[in-house]
């Protein structure tokens, strides 16, 4: 095989970069889901006492 360096650089960056993006995307998704779940829990636990918590 000729030009091995260029082929490795080409495939490495494109396939590796896509894999990296997938990993980051899944992490962002997991983090966002965690926050959204937490919000829902807070909303549920706070719901009965919602009108005025300080009273």
């Amino acid at each position, binding site marked *: 095989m*000729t*030009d091995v360096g260029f082929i490795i*650089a080409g495939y490495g960056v*494109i*396939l590796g970069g*896509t894999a990296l993006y997938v990993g980051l*995307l*899944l992490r962002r998704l997991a983090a966002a889901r965690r926050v959204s779940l937490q919000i829902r829990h807070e909303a549920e636990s706070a719901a009965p006492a919602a009108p005025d918590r300080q009273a």
Partner: protein
Amino acid sequence: MGTRVLGIVALLAVVAASVNALFLVPADVYQGDAQRIMYVHVPSAWLGYLSFGVTALAGIGYLWKRDLRLDAIAVSGAEIGVMFTAFAIWGGMMWGKPVWGVFWQWEDPRLTTTALLLALYLGYLLFRRLTDDPHRRAARAAVVGIVAAVDIPIVHFSVEWWRGLHQGPTFGSPDKLLHPAAPVLFVIALVGMVVAFTLAWVWLMIRRYGLARIEWQIEEHGRLGRISAARRAARTAVAPADGAPEGA
């Protein structure tokens, strides 16, 4: 569930198509093994254009329907499109150095057009990041995306002329792969890679869209939280006898 299956299928397809393109298909007679880079360069470029097309259409749809789900599609297209466009440029450069002798060929209209495309949509993403209100962001991003899309054909023509009016034709055009005289094995390898990449693209779009939806909910919650916090602060300011002051 379906998305997970799609993800696994796409992963297997990309691996299989890559092994085929790297090791099974014979090397090109003139360009040698460097031509194998075309098998990832061409699908990247195709997905970049497809993504930006989706972004422009979703933007038009948003201005028409005012539905934030369409805006979520638009941002997914822009982000994924920027990634694939960058890959296309990278792949083109890695192919260009061994075949043309230079990384950057100013006379190739596609390369220069693609570089501007990348700049246009990087600006689009940055612009989105710096705007707060979701509806305002969606509307403005939509018009920015549409003007960017309108600009692309003009850029392409101008660069095409630029070359055409000032020097001879370029040598070693990347189009060779799709030429009718190209060997069947080459065509199969390229089509296989395009299909595999497009499957992966669909999976990415679905996941990125899901992320945009959840992020929107969180953002909305944050805004409501700030409003109610401001209200509470106003209430305690009116009745300071209540004791503990509200923080942040």
